[in-house]
């Protein structure tokens, strides 16, 4: 079998085999990008609702009755955990799955409910190598296979659209762009 047939075989077979892994890593990679850029946390869904106390309070006026009143108002009695004062003007009431943040001087309250985002929690778990052990080896195998898929891909097409023609130009551009970012943001 000629090397081109082997090349096509590698590209095709590994491409099919690791399609799922590519989706996992790419989607979680996009999520991580925006997570790092502080746009959002992909693993968490956060919902907030606003409430108001009947009247403003001071820290010294907060007691068990006040806490129970807040929990009744927000419907969170059965989720109560503990409370504390981050500072003189705020009260933090912790709940199972969230918290209530109270500004004492204005009586404004914000109820935050937090839960994990399905699908993203799972793919991030894999991308961040949380399972470790055998998963580390399997994901190394995937990474190595991606290199083979990439190399076999650039050698797939012959002629003016291949690496000696337009393909080569696109290859050069694809390498130049990250180098330019490095030059701009890291090296200079």
């Amino acid at each position, binding site marked *: 079998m000629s090397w081109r047939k082997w090349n096509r075989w590698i590209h095709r077979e590994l491409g099919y085999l690791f399609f799922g892994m590519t989706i996992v890593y790419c989607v979680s990679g996009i999520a991580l990008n925006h997570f790092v850029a502080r746009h959002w946390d992909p693993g968490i869904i956060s919902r907030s609702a606003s409430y108001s106390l009947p009247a403003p309070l001071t820290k010294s006026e907060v007691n068990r009755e006040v806490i129970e009143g807040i929990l009744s108002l927000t419907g969170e009695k059965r989720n109560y955990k*503990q409370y504390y004062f981050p500072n003189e003007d705020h009260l933090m009431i*912790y709940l199972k799955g969230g918290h209530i943040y109270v500004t004492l001087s204005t009586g404004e309250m914000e109820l935050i409910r937090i839960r994990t985002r399905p699908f993203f929690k799972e793919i991030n778990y894999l991308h961040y190598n949380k399972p470790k052990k055998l998963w580390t080896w399997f994901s190394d195998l995937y990474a190595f296979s991606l290199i083979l898929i990439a190399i076999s891909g650039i050698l797939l097409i012959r002629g003016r659209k291949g690496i000696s023609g337009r393909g080569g130009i696109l290859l050069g551009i694809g390498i130049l762009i990250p180098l330019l970012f490095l030059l701009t943001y890291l090296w200079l």
Partner: protein
Amino acid sequence: MQRLLIWVAGMVLLSACNQTGQKEEGGTPGNMEEVVSATVEEILAQPAEYEGKQIAISGMVTHVCRHGGQKCFVLGEDGETQIRIVPGGDIDEFKIDMEGSTVAFLGTFKILNVQQSTALIEDHESQAHHDQEMAHSEAEKADYFIEAIDFKEVTP
């Protein structure tokens, strides 16, 4: 009551760690490092006394870092002082639902050197979500912390 809680939690955690050690090393009693039970205030009053020691500490978790759960903050008995806890050993991350729970931690108290401390503050200031001063900000920028190797929720 708080001290009793800390001692009990510390002994539970230490016995769990010691059993693991015995399985891996063939069981040599007496290799156990002494665990010091302390409150947040005691540690921060004399940090040099506790540096490098295994500490058992317990308190309410006020905040878990949203970026990967790589740190959390425990409130002292005075309701104001907080200390930073980072995951070590086999702990990958702290879960957000630990917030508001009383948790017992077992770990090593560490103090950063000047270089590490400077790097920590630079990293802290470069992150957009730290623009607002929070109750745990002082602990987050402090050069002292506990690297936890085990923890247990005492009250959910």
